[in-house]
């Protein structure tokens, strides 16, 4: 089932931080990984990932560098800074608290 775009927009920073906490990635790779892990449920306009990456970079959560891949293509890889790691942990905790509250409301509404 596709996920609502607005819902996705609000959580894109968390997804980026979480994925980058595992390894350095470039934009296209972040999208591939998100789509793969969500089992194709994520359908967002890929161009909008880059402003989000730049925003996080400006906040000091990410650093970036151009690297040349095996096929000779240059790609801009992003990695987390120390502040980014903290922000990733904080955002993840906030997300779990939020979903817990929403789930508890929804489960009571169903019962």
């Amino acid at each position, binding site marked *: 089932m596709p996920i609502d775009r607005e819902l996705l927009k609000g959580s894109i920073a968390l997804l980026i931080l979480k994925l980058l906490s595992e390894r350095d990635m470039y*934009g296209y790779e972040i999208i591939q990984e998100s789509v793969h892990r969500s089992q194709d449920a994520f359908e967002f*306009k890929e*161009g*909008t990932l*880059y*402003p989000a990456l*730049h925003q996080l970079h400006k906040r000091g959560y990410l650093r970036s560098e151009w690297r040349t891949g095996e096929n000779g293509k*240059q*790609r801009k890889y992003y990695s987390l800074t120390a502040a980014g790691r903290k922000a990733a942990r904080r955002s993840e905790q906030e997300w779990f608290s939020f979903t817990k509250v929403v789930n508890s409301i929804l489960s009571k509404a169903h019962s």
Partner: protein
Amino acid sequence: MTHLDRIVSRVILLAKLPGNKPRCEVEKELRAHLDDLAEEARSQGYDDEAAARIVRMRFGQPEEVAAAFASVYAPERLAKRILQSAILVTASTVAVVVAIGTVQSIAALCTANSIISTLRDIHRELFGFAAIVAGYCSLYAGERLFPTSLARTLLPSVTLGLWLAAVFGWLIPQHGALPLVAFMCAAFGRLLQRVEIPLVWLAGTGGPLLIAWALCGPLISGWQFPWLVWLGLTISCKALREIVRLFERVFVEDFA
């Protein structure tokens, strides 16, 4: 230009990124992403046309991406605008002081007055210099902010003019008229510089002064038309036009 280039160019054009470096970075990054998308579509067996359609669909509207970039870089853009405005106002003030100082020095020479005493008193004309710069630059700001509507182009000048009238009326009630007339002359001068007929703009610097002189001549200069003031205003407007042109050449990327 390929369809991928067109998408990237559209984003770059609309995003108004502050400076060359972020522009080149974003351009290169988006281009690499679009290449990957197109390659993925082709590897799935789509022809070039279908691949282009898929790229457009997956990437999203360039306008939407540009708006998101514009919002990310809004503080930097604002800071750059403020800095550019400060440079323009400073250069304009220097140009006006030099222009009027030169006119007054030449007049002093012609009338066998002392240049030193003339220039020593030039600070008394501070309100006049500020008014000329404010009149000219506020109209220029109107042109940049609202290029398609004349009424809206005039809006910053009219608003600033009313504020200055109140400030001059309060600070220098006896002598508030002349800086206000200078303000109007500079603003009308700039307005008529947009007309492509040579020398028409001279009527802009002369008109308000002529009206003010006809209505209250003795308050300004007695019953003799203040030619020297008009000359100073006209040369100032000419100098300001060159300053504005230079400004647009230096910051060419923002005026493309």
